[in-house]
């Protein structure tokens, strides 16, 4: 018993380690003073400053454009890839290739794309980031949808074919509706990953635009200010909401699949 209790030390230490920095970050965002280190009093002024900061606003717009574009690519291609891999081939190599963008270090993908864009002489900008994010997000969507396909009942598809429905009708009316929770979860994942992605964007965006993580990165290099804390608090809220919504969604999907 006493020895079992000892295990709780690293357990709680892990949670304290994960959440203490976040808590400090959020508390300091309400600082009425100018310091990111000493709390003088409560105020929302940094949130006001944040809203007035054009660089951050531009960065946010760029990030949303990139995330929307890459999620669209990743969701469509990733879903098709997952269906193709699960239903139309047994190739282990293709499986591995499809997963590679998720496994390769981001730095390797980033320089690969930089060299490639250089060779085809593409002017870097938001669209080069959209294409790059679409690549790794597609791997994640494909993985999520595949898990869902593995649990799906193939006898329904067979019954549909036996009853005379063509492959297109079977796909649109039987396979696809079963996959919807997986596709939505995959799209959410792709969107969140793109929102936060720094390394690949940093390499492939060129000099004329910045995404939000790149704006934050360059702001931090000039020093710490509660304005970044306010931004952090808002982003935390958004990420946490998205994750919990995604969690709910998967659970609804699962309980429906069990019915």
């Amino acid at each position, binding site marked *: 018993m006493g020895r079992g209790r000892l295990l*709780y030390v690293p357990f709680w230490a892990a949670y304290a380690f994960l959440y203490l920095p*976040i808590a*400090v970050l959020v508390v*300091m965002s309400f600082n009425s003073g100018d310091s990111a280190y000493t709390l003088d009093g409560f105020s929302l002024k940094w949130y006001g400053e944040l809203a007035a900061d054009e660089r951050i606003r531009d960065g946010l717009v760029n990030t949303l454009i990139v995330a929307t574009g890459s999620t669209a690519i990743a969701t469509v291609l990733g879903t098709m890839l997952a269906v193709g891999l699960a239903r139309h*081939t047994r190739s282990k190599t293709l499986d591995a290739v499809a997963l590679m963008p998720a496994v390769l270090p981001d730095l390797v993908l980033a320089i690969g794309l930089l060299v490639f864009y250089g060779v085809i002489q593409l002017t870097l900008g938001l669209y080069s980031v959209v294409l790059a994010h679409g690549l790794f997000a597609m791997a994640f969507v494909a993985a999520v949808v595949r898990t869902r396909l593995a649990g799906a009942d193939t006898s329904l598809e067979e019954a549909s074919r036996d009853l005379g429905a063509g492959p297109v009708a079977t796909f649109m009316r039987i396979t696809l509706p079963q996959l919807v929770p997986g596709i939505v979860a995959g799209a959410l994942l792709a969107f969140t990953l793109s929102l936060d992605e720094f390394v690949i964007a940093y390499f492939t965006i060129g000099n004329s635009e910045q995404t939000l993580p790149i704006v934050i990165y360059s702001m931090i290099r000039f020093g710490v200010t509660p304005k970044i804390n306010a931004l952090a608090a808002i982003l935390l809220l958004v990420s946490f909401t998205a994750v919990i919504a995604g969690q709910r969604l998967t659970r609804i999907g699962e309980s429906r699949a069990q019915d």
Partner: protein
Amino acid sequence: MSRSRGRRLGAFVFLSPGLTYLLVLMLVPLVLVLGTSFFQRGRFGGVVYEFTTENFGRLVDPLYLGVLGDSVRIAVLTTLLALLIGYPTAYLIARLPRKWKTVALVAIVLPFWTNFIIRIYAWIMLLNGPGLVNSGLKLLGLGPYELLYNDGAIVVGLLYSYLPLMVLPLYAAIERLDPQLREASANLGASAFTTFRKVTLPLTVPGVLTGSLFVFVPSFGNFVIPEMLGGSKSIMVGNLIRNQFLKARDWPFGSTLALALIAVLVVLLVAQAWAARRG
């Protein structure tokens, strides 16, 4: 007959868009990186398309070998610490009642979904001279210490960023264990520690290997954390690659370094697959 043709048509329709995308934006770029590593840098940056193996010779320069060694050392230390904290955490989560299990797991993953740069920023705030850690130490009559801009700060940052990647595979491995095995071991007179050493730990080795790989890979190739939390002397292989591409403009040598990075990771993957098959 018509079904098998339909199957081939289906394979083409569903697979070709995604595979084309992978071919053009991943496989071709990787081949280009490989090719670039055999060329020379131009005098004003850029690539001169003349064959050379000189870039690979530069890899064994003590300066660069030292950086590779430092990167391995920092990534290994991070992985070991993650294992030390992650194993007991995963073990306890696996034994929680079902309802709390989900909550505990989501709570482990949640910080992972927040902005990467902001998570590192939090540690600058905490570890900096006037930061919270030094304020806490001051209450105990200690410090202030220079906690930021050294290898220790890099390890803390990496650990903070990748700990969830250790806990999840460990949890999956521990959760799968049959509790009867532990009971049997205890009934046969083994102490809790012996049961852990002889039953639980050997059966969860695959989880340990996967988690270690998940933490080691992003730690080893990182350049953002060493740049933001490390000192001017702490350079990891990721920083070196970044600098060759964006500062020194020596793409050929940067590509060679990236190949070295991939080589280390491939060796690890093969070793892990081998160990998993044996265990």
